[in-house]
């Protein structure tokens, strides 16, 4: 392993000066990148998903001569490790496959520790909002989930403000937003949509909202009221799913969870379903991004890998995307079809987060929820 790294580093030193600058690499097709990547010999990726092992196999079969080294690590650890390495002058990783985009935006992109790359092959098939500031490969969710066995007539919630009613006191769950970034992003997004939240308030209570002096806007008022209504915090989504989804439960709670966890319903004995007709939205869609580390030792192979992970032209995305194509998650590349059993992306009533805006507003919400506990 160490030998291989050393060899690759040596090779990179020899080749680097001779190859084209990064700007040119950005415009190359996979066919043009391949010979350069083969000279580089390998590519290292930090991945939030262990399904990178399947990508490794498929990638090495498609592009023999380029060794993929996949290391699976949570987003937080990827950020910590990349920061520490680059501060020490080490450039060992090429590609990050990572979520937690508000933090990536402030700590890595603004600090120029990573740079954005959009493969020319697929750029026409991805909406612009998924291409900047960082290229999203797929979207995951934190949306309102309910128990479809206990509520057989559909979601008991059709307006977020219902969650602050006495009827739902102590019956709304979420993973502690002071422990997990995605839930903090969800609350931040609610705060950012204050106008829609106040319209929804009007629709639910039939009167204009009055915002307390210690909070700003209807979104923050909602967060405050939700906590005051005995919102129950849990440590992880496993606990959440069991509590909401148990197929035998009589009066189960509702909560903010991951839509794609519904695929485990049968295996786990759950009845999880997304509450989609919710005013003004049922939660957030947040991206998992692919980005290139600053001074990546294998720049051509890095681009080849990112290109590969957007899949081929088939509806399933082929071996490059298929491992990530689960119902309830959504590809940003439009040629890849959603799962037939799940709500279509355009029909899902969720806000899509903008890493830049979320990053700017997140600190304030983080402080707010600490005072509310």
């Amino acid at each position, binding site marked *: *392993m*160490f030998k291989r*790294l050393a060899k690759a580093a040596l090779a990179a030193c020899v080749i680097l000066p001779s190859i084209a600058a990064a700007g040119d690499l950005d415009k190359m097709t996979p066919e043009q990148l391949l010979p350069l990547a083969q000279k580089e010999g390998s590519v*290292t990726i930090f991945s939030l998903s*262990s*399904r990178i092992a399947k990508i490794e196999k498929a990638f090495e079969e498609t592009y023999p001569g380029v060794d993929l*080294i996949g*290391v*699976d690590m949570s987003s*937080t*650890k990827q*950020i*910590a*490790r990349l920061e*520490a*390495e680059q*501060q*020490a*002058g*080490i450039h*060992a990783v090429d590609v990050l496959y990572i979520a937690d985009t*508000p*933090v990536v935006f*402030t*700590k890595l992109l603004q600090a120029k520790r990573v740079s954005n790359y959009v493969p020319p092959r697929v750029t026409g098939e991805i909406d612009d909002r998924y291409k900047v500031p960082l290229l999203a490969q797929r979207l995951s969710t934190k949306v309102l989930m309910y128990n479809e066995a206990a509520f057989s007539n559909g979601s008991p919630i059709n307006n977020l403000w219902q969650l602050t009613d006495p009827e739902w006191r*102590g*019956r709304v*769950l979420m993973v*502690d937003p*002071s*422990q*997990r*970034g995605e839930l*903090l992003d969800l609350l931040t997004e609610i705060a950012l949509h204050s106008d829609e939240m106040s319209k929804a308030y009007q629709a639910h209570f039939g009167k204009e909202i009055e915002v307390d002096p210690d909070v700003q806007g209807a979104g923050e008022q909602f967060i405050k009221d939700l906590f005051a209504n005995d919102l*129950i*915090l*849990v*440590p*992880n989504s*496993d606990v959440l799913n*069991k*509590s*909401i989804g*148990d197929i*035998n*439960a009589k*009066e*189960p*709670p509702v909560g903010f969870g991951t839509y794609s966890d519904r695929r485990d319903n049968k*295996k*786990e*004995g*759950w009845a999880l379903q997304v509450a989609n007709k919710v005013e003004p939205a049922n939660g957030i869609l947040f991206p998992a991004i692919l980005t290139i580390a600053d001074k990546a030792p294998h720049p051509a192979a890095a681009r080849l890998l990112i290109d590969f992970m957007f899949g081929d032209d088939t509806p399933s995305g082929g071996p490059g995307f298929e491992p990530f194509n689960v119902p309830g998650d959504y590809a940003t590349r439009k040629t890849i079809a959603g799962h037939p059993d799940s709500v279509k992306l355009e029909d899902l009533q969720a806000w899509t987060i903008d890493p830049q805006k979320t990053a700017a507003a*997140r*600190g304030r919400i*983080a*402080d707010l929820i*600490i*005072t509310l*506990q």
Partner: protein
Amino acid sequence: MTSTSIVMPSGSRLLRSAFLMPAILVAIIAILVVAPLLRILLSTLTPEGLAAWETVLFSPLSTNLWWRPLFNTMALGFGVSIGCLLLGGFLAWLVILTDVPGRRALGLMATLPYMIPSFAAALAWGTVFRNARLGGSAGFFETSGLAIPDWLAWGLVPTAIVLIAHYYSLAYTIIAAALSSVGADLVEAGQMAGARRPRIFFGIILPVVTPALIAAGSLTFAGAVANFAAPALLGLPVRMQTLSTRLFGMIETGQNERGFVIALLLIAVSAAFLWLSDRIVSGRKAFITVTGKGGRTKRFPLGVWRWPLFGLALVVGLLTTVAPILILAASSLAPQGGALFSNWTLHFWIGEGGGAIAQGQAGVFRNPILLDALWNTIQLGLVVAFTTMLLGLALAYTIVHRRGSLLASVLSQLAFMPLLIPSIAFAAAYIALFSAPIGPMPSLYGTFALLVVAASAHNLPFAVQSGRSVLGQISADLEESARLTGAGLIRRLFAIIFPLAIRGLFAGAILVFVKMVRDLSLVVLLFTATSPVLSMVAYRYAAEGFMQFANAITLIILVVCLAASLIAHSLQNRVQKWKES
């Protein structure tokens, strides 16, 4: 090393023997512990860092961010520490110093809980005591019609109980090692002088093992204070935050400076308590019990209490080992996490892949990387346990021989801190420190060596605490005699100190081994390994939602730890043949 040597050493020898080792140790500690700490401290002195200090300590947020979590944390720390000393001490006394039946089995059971991850005990608690607050399926008591109040199902009380059930075995391991060196002659002397049993216990045995009690107390305190799984599982539903859940949350949501401020404050508070307890020990005379004479252990007859006490110990052992293991085993057999005791299948262990269960994943024993990971794990555990104990022994030796000096108290304080430094910050500091070549040393980035260095430093407290509690009991006479016959330090260490202290050393080594085999953070952050360790395999399964496989791996890790401790046990018996009676 002491100043009482008979032969006056020449100047250069004095330099070599009395100053060289402490100087080297101070340098090592400076690099391994002080440097990362300073780096963390410096990162909180930036403008953002200073703002974080203010937010944590003096802002409207401080109540919920610092003071209340601090209160919960200290309550847990002291509660768990006292509980562990009582429970672990009682069991150690029973197993080592009495004629209770089934001593070996009881002793083995008492070492187990620490090897079972604390989340298993928390889950076991939930299985029994869970109430309707979270929805989902209720616990055993609620389904049988007994309402469980929130304070018993969630929050401080259950967290403390679960942590005691987890950490008492740490206290047992250390106290038992110290008790076994209380020679029969001491006790018999007391008996001949007509002392009654309580007098012997409080007048002889307790004072002798005080250093071990302090060591065990501080390690269990640190363990409870740093534990994340139990307070998160049992505390969050009633919004109980501890400093460890706060710390985790701050780092997880990208607010590193605040996290580091909390970590530094936690280290400061814990250091203050440790310093106090250190004063208690060093303020008194040390009792030397390992004298080279005798060495048998005297067992008290328990009389009519033999069986009742055996029953009590057995119940404690069963509740704290069997219950969590059963939960783990059941959750590696049950297809549904919500119904642990139905439809058991061995699929997750030995099933062939491609079927309908678990999205076609094959059982863990069919995972081609399992053997590889098993071997890597054992290797890593052994290497780290060895290096940590070597370093820890040297430190403990110096601390014990210079008891009361400034050097000793500084070293012992510093050697205790790594346990409380969040591993993500620890690892980041190590990458920064060792990635560039230092002098003749090449860059350690991404190497196994870096992992071993960092892990040794991180686990140092176990080695130092368990080492000094045993070394403190060894008579200086033995070393003096050896020195008179011309034996050098190395010779004395291997011929005298090692064999006499082996129980304590192995006790520490096992604790380090267990910690290392289970710990994931350092490995992921420091080592770019294509060959995984078991904890990484378990993490991969868990991250994909395959808890059954993950729990199966956890059980395999448990078996590895257990095997290691049995081997250590038989080794120490072979070395200390005189103990067999």
